[in-house]
């Protein structure tokens, strides 16, 4: 056995620093990335950043083909993510439409349908099938859904008159009362 006692030569300091910086950077990168993925949706209490939504023709908001979210200050906004391929969305479609017909006359509430990863042709078939009349548009380049960090469809976000998110409904509503309850809270 050549059990020579090796000279105890430590690692040069600069190499140690390089190693640790590299390791820390790598871990930080992974940590940040993972934590971002782990975040839930935008949480109630947060002010919603501005974004724009282009509507399908026939589903405009007050005749405007495109709006900025900030234009809606002073109104309660019900933002519903949906898709024509989404089965659970169909459960709540009629309820949403009913709630809309009830609150539309007040002029204080806006319903926005955001169509997630969908083709326009299929979306139109869906909208027609459930007789939906409130404003609807596609989530272009999935920017809006990425901002809200949605976990799936359907999800509905209730934003108050100051533009602050107040409530998030994940999954379909079980009945129209659930929708009324949230809107009434924000109208008070």
């Amino acid at each position: 056995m050549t059990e020579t006692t090796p000279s105890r030569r430590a690692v040069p300091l600069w190499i140690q620093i390089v190693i640790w910086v590299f390791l820390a950077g790598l871990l930080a990168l992974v940590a940040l990335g993972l934590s971002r993925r782990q975040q839930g949706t935008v949480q109630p209490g947060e002010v919603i950043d501005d974004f724009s939504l282009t509507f399908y023709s026939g589903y405009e908001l007050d005749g405007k083909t495109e709006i900025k979210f900030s234009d809606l200050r002073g109104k309660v906004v019900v933002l519903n993510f949906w898709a024509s391929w989404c089965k659970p969305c169909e459960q709540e479609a009629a309820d949403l439409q009913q709630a809309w017909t009830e609150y539309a006359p007040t002029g204080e509430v806006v319903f926005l349908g955001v169509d997630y990863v969908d083709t326009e042709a299929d979306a139109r078939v869906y909208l027609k099938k459930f007789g939906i009349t409130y404003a609807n548009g596609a989530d272009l380049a999935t920017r809006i859904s990425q901002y809200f960090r949605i976990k799936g469809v359907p999800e509905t976000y209730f934003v108050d008159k100051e533009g602050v998110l107040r409530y998030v409904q994940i999954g379909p509503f079980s009945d129209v009362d659930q929708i009324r309850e949230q809107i009434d809270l924000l109208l008070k």
Partner: protein
Amino acid sequence: MIANLGLGILLVTFIVTVYSAVTAAASNPKGLARLLRSLPSLRAKRFADELEKLETPQRAASMAESARRAMLLTFPLLTITSLLLIYLLVNDHYEVQFVYEVTSRSMPTYLKITAWWGGQAGSLLFWSWLMSAFASLVTLRKWDRDREFLPWVIFVSCVTLAFFVGMTAFFENPFRVFYQTETGVEAHFFQPANSTPFTPEDGRGLNPLLRHPGMIIHPPLLYLGFVSYVIPFAFAIAALITGRTDDRWIRLTRRWSLWAWLFLTFGLVLGGRWAYDVLGWGGYWGWDPVEIAAFMPWLTGTAFLHSVMIQEKRGMLKHWNMLLIILTYDLVIFGTFLTRSGVLSSVHAFAQSAIGPLFFIYIAITLIVSVALVIYRWGELKSETEMNSLLSREALFLFNNLLFMSILVVCFWGVIYPLTSELFTGSKVTVGPAFYERANGPLFAGLMFLMGIAPLSAWGHSTVKTLGRAMWLPTVAAVLVTIAIFVTYTHNVYALIGFFLVAFVILITLYEYWRGSRARMKIHSENIFTAFWNLTARDRRRYGGYIVHISMMLMAIGILGIELFQMETQGTLEVGQQKSIGGYDVVYKDIARFTGPDGREVTRAVLSIYRGQEYLGDLHPRIDYYWDSQQSMTIPGQRATMKDDLYILLVNWEPAAATGATFKIYVNPLVNWLWMGSLLFLIGIIIAAWPDKDPERIAVRAGRRARQASAAD
């Protein structure tokens, strides 16, 4: 009741593992003291002096023994826990959340058992159970020569085990039970106030994708591979802590790493086979992050397998081997995390649970501590010999390691890139197969080239002349083979390079075999078969390794075939119509929809296959729809030959519509070589890894001799 018992035993196991880890560490105060001394603080040094006084041989021995017994206890405890879970699964105890999520009444019993590793909580328990089995196996061996390693091997194993058991007990517990409370049904360990037990009528059923036989044994094999890599890691850390940094730890764990590699490789291949049979996309590997997560420890593990040989033969690369095994260990944990949590593969499946951050923290801590240990021992890990030639075997092994690491970098970057991109640009991106294929292709080619020349080069020294003399004959033969392929099969440049390399490696390896056998025939006057047999028996690791190389090349043939020559077509046929592809004529005969044995709805088509006028048989692609989990599976109809696979998928058929059925037809050339290769691989690796009669003594003697020999030359 039973669920509570399971929970109780799980908690006890956790306490036992923690006890074992703490006792093991405390049994070796000198080791701790030495570590403390390296800290710059004076108080740490004083404390270290105190610690050293504590160590008496008797106390150390009795504490280590206590730790060992505690560790041995974890296996029966986890076995009971697992049996309880299996009991719940098999007997339809849907009041238990885990049982509800992974089984249903219509599932056969064997599937209810394998549902054990079908969900996150159960698979963590399964991981822990395997880990405890391996840790127990290790502690059962004779330890007299390596007393000082024992406490630290127990320590590392038990820390790992404690982490997984703790995770199972506190965060992903399979024994949570449903209770009806005022706000709805919730799962709890114990009955909350004002609630009643709640039992769903039926479970949601196992994900149909996991009901395939391939999926029944693919996860266990992969996990076996994962878990067995913990053992070499534990020895490496023990070597670092005790300062016994010669190659003893490598010799002790050589077979462990071979078996670990066997399980991991075969687990990966089976995963590929499962994907081919079940996922219905005509391939076996899609560069999905989950697949890559299992592939990354394989890359470092394979690099480790090669580079330890340099340390054994030449006493070099000690740092590197340490780093490799540390990396492998953390990639194993990372892989378990990714495959289980789904954090990368799908945002949807991932609930916000604490397990993600905990896994990350554990990986970060183990990585930092291990690297710190390596730096601390850096001086003592110095190489004993010098590198002599760029063509020596050790140099070629280094290039091999470089290539494996490069592939790792590409894979890791591909997995992590979407995360970073999201971080910096705010928008999600997809890293598709094209990226990996483009970046890894040349690296794989380089590996194949090295696989060809490395066996011919000698340890210590080789020159272009000696290498050239050894390889000109096989090289010429390989060129001839490539020309033959050019004339008869393909003009694709990538394919030709690939096939040349395959031929090159196989011929050189066979040539090596032949020269070895011939040498034996001359000197021992043996006949060719005895010579061949004895040659392999004398150095099983080397010649087993050669068989593994050949098997890898067979697999490469399959991969080249399907990657470069896959043909596909899709179309809607009416009964009696036909579609042609790759020399096959496929005639749509019939289709039927009926209810299968376990309640699934089967839609099965019949297609007749012809080549010209010759009738080759019928194929039956089908779609299985599972009502319980509301998912469907597309099972291909396959006709496999060594030349190609005909692989037909039923894409769509509606009984009401008179438009016929839509089929997708693939011709996958040469893919069978991949599966054949994996069988040969199994043979090769078993030859290499089969335990010697007395591995201990032989290994020691061999080590001493090898060292003397290398010191002499």
